[in-house]
């Protein structure tokens, strides 16, 4: 994997939302407060791979996805696409980037214009980016509908005539219409039922294989992320705490947060009980992120250094990159436990 050229690179990305200050604060001229959603994200996407992003709600998964497609203007850090910085591109280059990196949204009921037929939706995407001459557009629409296994007469129908799963297929067709290289899937199948979810996931995997797509898969369903991803990043309060090969991270997570999070997914085997005690407490507010390691308040291994210094991501042998001060001792206990009771 290392010899591949990263297609998309994110360096030290930060994003803070300004709050609407209460009147009292305005009158007293207090400094504005910021919701610190992303606090220095570093990651890269290699061509053709799927990177899964997991974390609790409010940890910045969706904000990261939206920053990548330019829905939020960049604040700190940089996004490199094909080794070129996205933010200082000309408008024409920006438009090209927007075409090559496409996003698909969570809610299939609000992400399609209810008054545009499926044909119009696809037509708009094709003509805005001048993908095909006008005469060929109808053919291309049929091709796209075939690609996502929708009937061809779907082009004349309005979104409300489709079920949730079919709408997500339309969203996928819309994203694919401009022949992108990167797909950002923000909770693409979270709103769907299990049996329909499997259909859409199969479609996505199939399309990736045939079109060589690079996918950023944001989801809170851990089983699903494990299934579709090559690599996985675990985010806590806007920072990556662990990133590495999907198998590695899921089967032997090292960071205390990833261990708690990845173990919390209930297994469908009634006798496979979760061995980890449940995580205490809840996600702190991103308005005032704890100093040092953001996780120290909930971490069973926290010591003095965790309260003061923010740990940085470091590559570990046999694991991915981990941001924890106690990685060595945790890895040692993991290895010990592994020897005593070999898992799986």
């Amino acid at each position, binding site marked *: 994997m290392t010899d591949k050229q990263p297609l998309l690179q994110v360096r030290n990305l930060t994003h803070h939302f300004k709050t609407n200050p209460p009147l009292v604060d305005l009158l007293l001229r207090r400094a504005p407060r910021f919701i610190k959603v992303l606090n220095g994200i570093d990651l890269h996407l290699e061509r053709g791979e799927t990177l899964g992003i997991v974390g*609790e*709600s409010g940890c910045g998964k969706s904000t990261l996805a939206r920053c990548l497609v330019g829905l939020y203007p960049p604040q700190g850090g940089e996004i490199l696409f094909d080794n070129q910085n996205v933010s200082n591109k000309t408008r024409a280059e920006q438009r090209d980037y927007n075409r090559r990196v496409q996003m698909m949204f969570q809610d299939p009921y609000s992400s399609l214009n209810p008054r545009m037929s499926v044909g119009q939706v696809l037509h708009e995407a094709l003509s805005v980016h001048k993908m095909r001459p006008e005469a060929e557009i109808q053919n291309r629409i049929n091709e796209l509908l075939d690609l996502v296994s929708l009937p061809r007469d779907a082009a004349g129908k309005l979104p409300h005539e489709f*079920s949730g*799963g*079919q709408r997500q297929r339309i969203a996928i067709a819309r994203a694919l219409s401009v022949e992108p290289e990167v797909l950002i899937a923000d909770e693409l199948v979270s709103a769907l*039922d*299990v*049996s*329909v*979810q*499997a*259909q859409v*996931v*199969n479609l996505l*995997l*199939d399309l990736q294989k045939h079109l060589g797509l690079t996918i950023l898969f944001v989801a*809170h369903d*851990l*089983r*699903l992320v*494990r*299934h*579709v*991803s*090559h690599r996985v990043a675990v985010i806590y309060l806007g920072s990556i705490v662990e990133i590495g090969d*999907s*198998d590695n991270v899921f089967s032997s997570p090292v960071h205390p947060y990833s261990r*708690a*999070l990845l173990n*919390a*997914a*209930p*297994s*469908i*085997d*009634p*006798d496979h*009980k*979760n061995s980890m*005690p*449940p*995580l*205490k407490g*809840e*996600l702190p507010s991103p308005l005032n992120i704890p100093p040092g390691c953001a996780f120290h308040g909930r971490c069973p291994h926290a010591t003095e250094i965790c309260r003061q210094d923010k740990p940085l991501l470091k590559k570990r042998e046999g694991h991915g990159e981990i941001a924890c001060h106690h990685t060595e001792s945790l890895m040692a206990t993991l290895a010990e436990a592994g020897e005593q009771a070999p898992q799986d």
Partner: protein
Amino acid sequence: MRHYSSDPATGAEQTQNRTAATNPEIANPPALLEVRNLSMSFGLGQSGLLAIDKVSFAVKPGEILGLVGESGSGKSITLRSVLGLTRRYGRVNGEILWKNRDLNKLNNRDLQKIRGREIAMIFQEPMSSLNPLLSVGLQITENLRAHTGLGRAERRKKAIKLLDLVGIPSAAARLGDYPHQFSGGMRQRVMIAIALASEPELLLADEPTTALDVTIQQQILDLILALSREMGMSVIMVTHDLGVAAQTCDRIAVMYGGRLVEVGPVRNILRNPQHPYSIGLLRSVPENVPPRSELYSLPGIPPGLGNRPSGCCFAPRCPVATARCAVEKPDLFQSGEKVSLACFNPQNLLSGTPQ
């Protein structure tokens, strides 16, 4: 007043033993709640839309029954119909036997005495099911005032005790707080505290953890399990997540198209499902499959309320459907010692694969 000795936060270890304690083989108590041929249709007359169709099940004391199925399968309507909450939207037929009384025959006033006292309910969205204008203390004591004879000071004491029980730190100080001052998981705990105020014998939980993160979900499920064990309370838990059902329930009832398709002990249903729908549902969960392999997926989508097939609802999507399935609705029958099934062509696909 009952005494709660254990810390709900440590419910994880206790839950290991609970199956033994409530094993129906050891003790075979009569059912606490028995639902017979419960049907509910929205609207009246010919144009009524049948939401649930002849659902029958029983809950034993101390048992946790999981109602699983996809959206629109009638899980929530079943739950709400038990408490008479769907009456105003249409017609409810069948028997709901609770302590030798048929809840479906009771008028609203008599039902009110049972609702919230003997049978309590928690809802999916803690955001919208708490009153945003009332402090949580008031919302808990309101329930206590309606269902117990406690005085004002005692009610307050009990409310603090309840908040403590569900694991809300510094309970006394938070009594005056409003719902928006709590996080999602904490709000769900408040909901549970309200439901538990009258020490119900049966708790109806409608997707209690669906809106929550997995880490919080585990805390809430452990809490429900521990409380059920402590208080000997039965639970009917509606969920679409088979993992949640597997980890918490004693028995599982699978619903599809408004009917029960398979009912049995959790291990029987999850290890050796026989109904093609249960099999499909289980196989489409991405667990124990090689990463990035094709997931098993049922063709088609669940039927809408208005266009359910005249035969077996699952027939159009079923891989083993026959001509009979298209015209006749299969009824639940006892297929094994503890499992009932509604299918003309039961399958035995997973029996050879030990898991």
